[in-house]
């Protein structure tokens, strides 16, 4: 069969397309591999039009597999990719051979399997809502592919080929299988998904990490190129209490970076930390001594690779399903146990206390935040003196913040070269950069002014999603700002970055559609991705309570409809009376089921008789009821002739039934 008429090939291509598509959504694979995959897919379709050299490719398959294994080892050991990414690269290139080469049945089946493995890999790499669409399309396309594979295998095994009529029937059957399977598989998938035990053993398998690109707890100035404006969702933030939304200043603190080595800001890993254990209902008392709670936040963290709890304000209490939390000296919260799923947590925080004294009981000495790396900052110090002017520490700090905001330009371009002193390069040469450069310059200038300062990495504002009633924070909203320690005021926030996230005209046009897509993603995340043991228990609890309600309703109806003797007093407890009818009904149902089972076994002979014979028996029964009884001495034909005379109105029915019976019974009889 030519390729363009071969259903197996087309269905296999479709599954493979879904595989590459799902990998493209993850954002984990390099663009080169993805581009290669797409290109070979389309080239493969074109090459099928003139399949001249496809056979030759097959001769290189063994060598290619050896090369691909080498590539896999290179990816895994040298480039440090996770197993999933390395396997995804391997599959992508191996699949290219299948796309371009000769496509026999087994090749098509391999294309389907590769596509499936790619989808599987993608599902372990990301949790985006795109996977819902891919999985939805996978069901009919994989069903059709497997059906055609089996059909071709049968033809191979029996050395037959389908006739034109059979091909048409098979096509109709494939459509039926593909789309008929969809609701059944969806229903069963939902059942398995809801009921399958959520144990989450978390056994570690070496190399099978789940690291993702995204937020990092460091600010590195030694980078070149251009930062990507990634749109992957990081977290969803909502305020369950009305009015709290207005109190939010738009900042979500993540990690505090105290140490600067001239090129990179990192947290103080030597500093004091405290491990917190949860109380009842996973409640952590983080800072119980602070004043009243100003803000309650509910956060769904989609990307948990940084193992950091993002919080607005100074957290007092946190409710999170984590085994433990680690509180740092700068009030940052992290966790250490492996957590690969989205995390939903609630924070009760104090905004006012944070603005006044965001510190902890074991805070490090602010004077430690005056240390500068062993690099000359003479020009920077002169610039800081000039820009800060005179006044108290707060005035000078605000002046420096304003100076950077007005005199420098925000840009995602990092340049092509790495300077020896990135801060001075930014301040005196480039004069533009991302938020990391602004905040680094401000922190250094503050330290040169003898004002303790530190960087904070976190997120800024995000997008308000009306349908969901949540803020959606994406990767592109990652931000770095500065906190300066002012005597008598504590740590205050300074944001020197003149960052302005503006939507492009295209984005504005599609904003409402995008909001609903994001909302879908939110629901996908909430209902599917976050479905865990607790959610499962809650679902079963709800099921039980609703079944109880139905039972109560039925009991009430039974008691209402049951006739009571006038004046009779209830002798037993009402509740035990309520359940009585259902016990009886249950027993009756069980007896009926058992009786029907016995009856079926007894009548099993009838099930095997041809329908014509059964119909004829029914016909005789009906005739008997109408007074025309077939005599034992009469043959069927004779009976029909008599009925024709006696009941001319039923002539057609009588002859139809008799003829069908005789045709079935005797025309095709054996020679015994």
């Amino acid at each position, binding site marked *: 069969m030519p390729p363009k008429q071969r259903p197996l090939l087309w269905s296999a291509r479709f599954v493979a397309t879904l595989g590459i598509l799902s990998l493209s959504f993850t954002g984990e694979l390099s663009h080169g591999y993805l581009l290669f995959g797409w290109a070979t897919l389309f080239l493969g379709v074109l090459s099928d039009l003139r399949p001249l050299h496809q056979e030759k490719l097959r001769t290189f398959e063994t060598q290619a597999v050896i090369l691909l294994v080498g590539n896999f080892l290179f990816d895994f050991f040298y480039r440090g990719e996770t197993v999933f990414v390395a396997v995804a690269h391997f599959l992508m290139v191996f699949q290219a051979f299948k796309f371009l080469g000769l496509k026999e049945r087994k090749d098509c089946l391999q294309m389907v399997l590769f596509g499936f493995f790619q989808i*599987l890999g993608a*599902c*372990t790499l990301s*949790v985006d809502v795109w996977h819902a669409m891919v*999985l939805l399309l*996978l*069901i009919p396309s994989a*069903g059709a592919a*497997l*059906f055609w*594979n*089996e059909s071709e*295998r*049968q033809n191979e095994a029996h050395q037959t080929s*389908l*006739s034109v009529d*059979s091909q048409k*029937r098979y096509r109709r*059957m494939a459509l039926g*299988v593909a789309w008929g*399977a969809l609701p*059944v*598989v*969806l*229903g*069963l*998938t*939902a059942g*398995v*998904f809801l009921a*399958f035990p*959520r144990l*989450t*053993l*978390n*056994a570690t*398998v070496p190399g099978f990490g789940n690291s993702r690109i995204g937020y990092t707890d460091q600010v590195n100035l030694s980078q070149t190129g251009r930062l990507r404006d990634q749109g992957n969702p990081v977290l969803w933030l909502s305020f369950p209490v009305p009015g709290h939304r207005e109190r939010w200043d738009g900042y979500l603190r993540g990690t505090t970076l105290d140490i600067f080595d001239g090129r990179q800001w990192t947290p103080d890993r030597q500093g004091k930390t405290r491990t917190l254990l949860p109380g009842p209902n996973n409640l952590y008392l983080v800072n119980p001594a602070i004043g009243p709670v100003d803000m309650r936040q509910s956060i769904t963290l989609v990307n948990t690779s940084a193992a950091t709890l993002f919080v607005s304000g100074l957290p007092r209490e946190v409710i999170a399903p984590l085994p433990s939390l680690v509180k740092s000296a700068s009030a940052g919260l992290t966790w250490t146990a492996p957590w*690969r*799923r989205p995390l939903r947590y609630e924070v009760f925080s104090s905004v006012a206390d944070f603005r006044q004294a965001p510190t902890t009981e074991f805070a490090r000495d602010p004077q430690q935040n005056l240390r500068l790396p062993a690099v000359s900052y003479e020009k920077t110090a002169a610039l800081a003196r000039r820009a800060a002017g005179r006044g108290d520490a707060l005035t000078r700090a605000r002046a420096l913040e304003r100076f950077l905001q007005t005199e420098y330009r925000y840009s995602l371009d990092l340049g092509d070269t790495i300077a020896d002193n990135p801060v001075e390069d930014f301040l005196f040469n480039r004069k533009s950069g991302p938020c990391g450069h602004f905040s680094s310059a401000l922190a250094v200038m503050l330290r040169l002014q003898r004002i303790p300062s530190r960087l904070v990495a976190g997120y800024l504002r995000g997008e308000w999603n009306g349908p969901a009633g949540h803020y959606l924070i994406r990767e592109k909203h990652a931000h770095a700002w500065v906190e300066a320690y002012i005597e008598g005021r504590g740590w205050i926030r300074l944001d020197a970055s003149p960052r302005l996230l503006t939507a492009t005209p295209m984005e504005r046009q599609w904003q409402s559609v995008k909001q609903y897509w994001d909302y879908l993603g939110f629901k996908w995340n909430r209902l*599917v*991705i976050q*479905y*865990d043991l607790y959610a499962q228990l809650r679902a079963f609890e709800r099921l039980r309570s609703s079944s109880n309600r139905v039972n109560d309703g039925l009991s009430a109806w039974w008691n209402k409809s049951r006739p009571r003797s006038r004046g009779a007093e209830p002798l037993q407890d009402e509740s035990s009376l309520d359940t009585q009818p259902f016990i009886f009904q249950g027993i009756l149902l069980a007896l009926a089921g058992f009786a*029907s*089972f016995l*009856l*079926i076994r007894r*009548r099993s002979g009838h*099930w095997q008789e*041809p329908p014509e014979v059964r*119909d004829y028996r*029914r*016909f005789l029964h*009906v005739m008997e009821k109408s007074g025309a009884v077939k005599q034992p001495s009469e043959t069927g034909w004779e009976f029909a002739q008599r009925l024709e005379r006696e009941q001319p109105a039923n002539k057609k*029915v009588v002859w139809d039934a008799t003829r069908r019976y005789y045709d079935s019974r005797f025309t*095709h*009889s*054996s*020679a*015994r």
Partner: protein
Amino acid sequence: MDRTRFIAWARSLSTAPWRTLHWLLATRPIRFTRFGTLYILFTVGVGAGAINTGNNLLYLILGILLGFIVVSGFLSDSGLWGVRSSWRPLESCYAGRPALFGCRLQKGWFPAVGVSVKAHWSDQQESHEFIHWVPARGQIDFSVLVTPQRRGWMRMVKESFSTRFPFGLFEKFHAAERTDQWLVYPAVLRLNLQSSELETRRSDSKPAQRIGLGAVPYHVRDFREGDPANRIHWKLSAKRQALLINEMEEEADQGDRLVVSQWPKGLTPEEIERLISFMASFAYSLIDEGRPVGLATPGITLPPEHSRSHLDRLLRYLALVDLGSEVEQKGSARSLSPGRDIDVLKLWRRGTYAA
């Protein structure tokens, strides 16, 4: 819809729950294919991965994989449920000779796709046929070659239908015990009857002086419409430039009667089969030549005839005859006129006639 049809329809509705229950309770043997085994192992692996990581997308994929198994089971069962077959031989069956058996497959509400039909016969034989498609509420005919091994009743012991439809993950079977049986005539060979003894017997036969179906030409007449073409005397027709027909004289011969006055004793089963086969072949060859043949044994006496139905009667007796039975052992052959007796045992022992 008239009353009768309405009642039939209502009754068919009332049986639906019983059918459903029967469908649910029926046993369904399955066998894993290699692909199916790998599929199951892979599903278990995904399940283990899902339980280990708590990744809900893996749970979804696990659900899809399990869903495909259920869909596969449902569809394959629907494809096999309600398959009915009826078998019949398309020609007479002789021991040791392949016979064509026709089978009609009928299907209920769902079409049968890719069904393998296997018939198990009483003599350890199996017939196998692969059917691509049996339409819903339709039928399909096919035929298989079966070689019966011995005379007598050949039974179909069991019949099984299997399919790998729709995904090739499992092979599902539906088997049914069968009680159909067909008669297998003894092995028959066409014998060379040109021996001197038989020719002498033939030459003894006297013409009946009237037109008949004998071997001796009686006279020649003009061709008339409806005359058989094989009796045209071509040479004479060419000479006279008109079609002429050979007409044969009816033989006064009343035929041959194969006589076994007493069944021989002490024969091995193989020898008995050879003797029966020889008798059947002898009778078959004689009748095939147009000679009336009768049979006289301790168990049966059949007057000479040369019709097809007579040959069937004769072969049926030979197919079922049991030399050890009381009737065959204690009785004796009755010699009835007309016809001449041929001592079959003598001829068989002499081995005069070869195939």
